[in-house]
């Protein structure tokens, strides 16, 4: 599970390079995001532009990562590919996260 992070302004940008966040990868994903966001002080953008597929385990892991950040560090999502977007829509989790078309859109949005 390839996860990298960098800071830009108030944002911590977390980029997932893996194409699938599924049952096999969910734990590694959760641990990876936690490792790169533990010391984040502000909002986080999870850039999923490279992710072609998530299943319910992957969705659960993304939710867990968001909960771990807590109220003060809002998790935004960027770059949802069609299959990933469908999972968020079907489960109504698209109303729980701020979702942006791509990283650029996320960066110019209101933080938090």
């Amino acid at each position: 599970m390839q996860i990298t992070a960098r800071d830009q302004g108030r944002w911590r940008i977390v980029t997932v390079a893996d194409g699938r966040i599924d049952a096999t990868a969910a734990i590694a994903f959760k641990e990876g995001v936690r490792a790169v966001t533990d010391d984040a002080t502000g909002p986080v953008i999870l850039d999923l532009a490279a992710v072609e597929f998530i299943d319910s385990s992957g969705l659960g892991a993304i939710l867990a990562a968001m909960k771990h950040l807590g109220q003060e560090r809002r998790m935004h999502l960027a770059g949802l590919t069609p299959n990933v977007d469908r999972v968020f829509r079907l489960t109504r989790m698209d109303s729980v996260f701020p979702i942006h078309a791509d990283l650029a859109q996320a960066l110019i949005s209101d933080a938090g």
Partner: protein
Amino acid sequence: MLAERMVPPRIVTPSDRSAAGFRLRFTTGEASVRFALREWRAWMLPLGLPPDLEGRAETVLAEVLNNITEHGHSAEAPGWVTLACWPVGAGLAFEVRDRGAPPPMMLLTPDGAFDPLRGAGPGDLAALPEGGFGWHMIRTLTCDLGLQIVEGENRLRFVVPFGGEVLGE
């Protein structure tokens, strides 16, 4: 993990471009679902189906196979799974057979009470669930979902339709 790829005879008729079906038999275990999905995709992609149908079908199949391998079996008690898929007029039909613990029948019917937000308000993070989404997606994305249990063998059948998501879930 063991697997046999069984290639059915290809039936070619003048107007039927995708008469051949897919059949795979594999044992549950780590990475077995990824393996099965990869094999299925390799058969499915050349059919030239609408990408939306492909995506919905893969989502359903992944949830079904995850349930079988994670809830129906264990590392100590693996088992064989048979996956069949074939095109039908309405979309893609599937039959998945296994001999593990069957899912509760109530999961196959719309309960009308699936509410993942469960009244959680904005910022009410603790109230958000982290699970239970799989069967909701299976029900929402399929037609003719049914489970038969025949002499200890679970046979789950469903169709992923061309038309899209099933409304009213």
